[in-house]
């Protein structure tokens, strides 16, 4: 019996793993704890207080940046998910056809090129377009975000489609349902968990983006991450901890929801 157990046991692995989890969470935990610090330095605890949350709430630049993030992310994620859903329908459940590999490569390109390279490329091109057209609104950021969100939205939708049963759609078609009706009443409801997962991934990825946003944004278009990046250059107050904590809570909520949904469907 003792031998049975020892097969899976490698000496020291459990210790390293537990240290790994500890180190993974220590910085995040510190960050969150000091967001509630009454004092103004990280490292010395001076009692519990919500003053830094209040300070962040009253800082109009933070609120502006948050609202901008929450404008860009859903729009970009929606565009990316719609485009990715169509692309997934076009690239699955078929024998290989000419151009299929090309489409895969194209759609996954944003994952393969380093973000900093895409960022400077967009800086170069969009700054010229801004001069030509005179338009310098949020459109550029939404476009850039939609582009790098597409592969993230595409992957779960494609995975869902590939495991779907084709016979249900055939049955509907045999029963004289027109193609559009088959799509709306059979295909789409079956795809839905994949689409939802894809949208959530795209949303989180857009919300988190720093590098591309930093290079594409015009003056006064800070999103929450680029605002934070700018602040990190200066002396940091626990206000940053407070924003980070709220951001963190939001991410954890979305990821938990994602986990819950993906478990439920199986």
């Amino acid at each position, binding site marked *: 019996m003792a031998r049975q157990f020892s097969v899976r046991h*490698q000496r020291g692995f*459990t210790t390293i*793993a537990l240290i790994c989890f500890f180190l993974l969470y*220590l910085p995040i935990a510190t960050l969150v704890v000091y967001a509630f610090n009454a004092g103004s330095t990280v490292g010395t605890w001076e009692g519990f207080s919500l003053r830094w949350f209040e300070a962040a709430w009253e800082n109009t630049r933070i609120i502006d940046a948050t609202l901008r993030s929450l404008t860009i992310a859903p729009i970009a994620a929606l565009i990316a998910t719609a485009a990715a859903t169509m*692309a997934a329908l*076009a690239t699955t459940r078929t024998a290989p056809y000419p151009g299929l590999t090309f489409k895969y490569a*194209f759609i996954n390109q944003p994952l393969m090129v380093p973000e900093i*390279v895409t960022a400077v490329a967009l800086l170069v091109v969009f700054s010229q377009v801004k001069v030509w057209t005179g338009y310098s609104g949020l459109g550029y950021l939404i476009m850039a975000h939609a*582009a790098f969100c597409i592969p993230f939205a595409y992957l779960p939708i494609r995975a869902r489609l590939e495991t779907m049963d084709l016979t249900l759609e055939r049955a509907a078609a045999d029963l004289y349902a027109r193609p559009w009706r088959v799509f709306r009443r059979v295909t789409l409801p079956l795809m839905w968990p994949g689409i939802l997962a894809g949208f959530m991934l795209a949303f989180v990825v857009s919300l988190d983006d720093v590098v591309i946003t930093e290079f594409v944004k015009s003056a006064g278009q800070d999103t929450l991450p680029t605002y934070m990046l700018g602040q990190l250059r200066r002396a940091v107050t626990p206000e940053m901890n407070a924003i980070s904590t709220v951001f963190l809570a939001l991410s954890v909520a979305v990821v938990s929801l994602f986990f819950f949904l993906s478990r439920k469907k199986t």
Partner: protein
Amino acid sequence: MSKAQDIIKAAERRDLRSRWLLSAPSLLIIFVAAIGPLAVVVLYSFMVKGDYGDVKYWQFSGEGWFSVLFERGLFDDSISLADAHLSILWRSVKISIITTIVTLIIGFPTAYFIATRPPNRRDLWLFLITIPFWTNLLIRTFAIQEVFRNEGVLNTALIRTGLLEKPLQIMFTDGAILLGIAYVYLPLMVLPLYASLEKFDFRLAEAASDLYAKPGRVLRRIILPMVKPGLIAGSILVFIPSLGAYVTPRVLGGGKHLMLGNLIELQFGQGRNWPLGSALSISLTAIVMLSLLVYVRASSKSGARSHG
């Protein structure tokens, strides 16, 4: 007979056309906001540097590519290696390789630990790895900065316990960048390793053990060869973003310890040398693509073996 074939052909053509129409939005968006600009950067890398940043349009030269590795003397035509660029390139490669090794050493036991938990507990441990992965990179970098700073948690704790008298300077060193990147990308190593280990049939390890193989030997001769695809996937997934890292070295390295990503930004900012910046960007992209190619080769090879 031929009519039936015609009908089938027409249906196939219609199917193909609708498939291209359906992919059009994705292809268009990615062309406009990713691939097109990248092509422009390739073009720019061959143009003459403008006076205020920018480039002189349609005046071509190889100067941008030349200055990736070499530099000319200020007053004469002497050519020497560009030490500044080479040291940054070397730092990027060095940090990325060491990061990959460090995350492998910590990540493998962690993935192994999760894979050997009872099935109903695995999801929870996996969830604990996934949360930092989905947490904003900037927040994680900020968190690690708060630990490293001179007045940060680590130094305060060390001074309080009397182990140190003066704070240890961790921030703005290569070591800080290395640890920061390793911290930030660790989940990217653990997840593919876990995916491989989870599929591993531990009865094989039992068999080896029954034949008197010691645990270390079972690990080296049975487990590691079987999870090689996961090892390669994890290493590539950590190596690639490390090489192109921008935020972490910018925050933890200060202005002095640049990596390739920061050098590229510099050329488009204060450096005002767009052709050089473009050439550096294309070089970085090429290295990444090459690593990906190695990965695809390796994974398809080991995949073929496990099926056959």
